[in-house]
């Protein structure tokens, strides 16, 4: 059984209230020196067999069509793992 990880982040120009909230909370907990936090998504997809190049290509397509919305998000990684 193989796995593929897909990572999706909001485009830099899109407001990210969750990242902002984390940024605001950090100093309150004593964590200083951070200038920006952005929060995105990480998907782990398991496939039955091996992660062939063909599988990877299909995941790339799914990442671009279903797992992300290109209007607001970028797919930053599609990678084999494990």
């Amino acid at each position, binding site marked *: 059984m193989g796995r593929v990880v897909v990572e999706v982040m*909001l485009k830099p*120009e*899109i*407001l990210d*209230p*969750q990242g902002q*909230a984390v940024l605001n909370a950090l100093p309150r907990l004593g964590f200083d020196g951070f200038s920006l936090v952005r929060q995105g998504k990480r998907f782990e997809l398991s496939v039955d067999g091996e992660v062939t190049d063909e599988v990877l290509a299909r995941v790339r397509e799914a990442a671009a069509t*279903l*797992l992300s*919305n290109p*209007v*607001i998000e970028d797919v930053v990684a599609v990678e084999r793992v494990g």
Partner: protein
Amino acid sequence: MRIGVVTFPGSLDDRDAARAVRLAGAEAVSLWHGDADLHGVDAVVLPGGFSYGDYLRCGAIARFAPVMGPLVDAANGGLPVLGICNGFQVLCESHLLPGALVRNDHRTFVCRDQPLSIERTDTPWTSAYAPGERVVVPLKNGEGGFVADERTLDELEGEGRVVARYVGKNPNGSYRAIAGISNAAGNVVGLMPHPEHAIEPLFGPDPRSGTGGLDGLRFFTSVVEGLVSA
């Protein structure tokens, strides 16, 4: 006059939208997400709710439902389509409307009586309003922040496609306080607030906060009258 109301798994305001259609004098036809057929309706409402739990992104999974195939075609062919809240999100994910709806800037769900100004009145859904008219309609969403890039926003403004705008405090961080937009032709409208919750006295916004609590009904009478006279 037959107006379809689509039910996806997780749709919540479908029966409310059907009630609004009936009160506006039309027949409400229930359309099922898994049925790739619009059954000859004269207009379609995509209601609010949490289709597929709003998992992944709001509207992202509903977009691929079988009913959306004929709906997208019909919308491109001029069929009046109104997407309310989750329906608006589905329309954006389907690229029938530009932009996207993201998590509210204050990160909490908000339910409130929302003042709006109706800015475009030449759509089939807003023809019964006066340009610039101020109305109060319930707003309830967790991911209602309308976002798009600057060029798209300028284009929407330039072409007069901002259908409704929030008045007063921006409730969710929407860019340029946009509450609703239309496609270029005007037949497809997406709206974050819920006009179907302001159609009966005493069951909508406090009468004190607006003009009697019935401000939403004209979204539905607009399309009915438009279709009758067409």
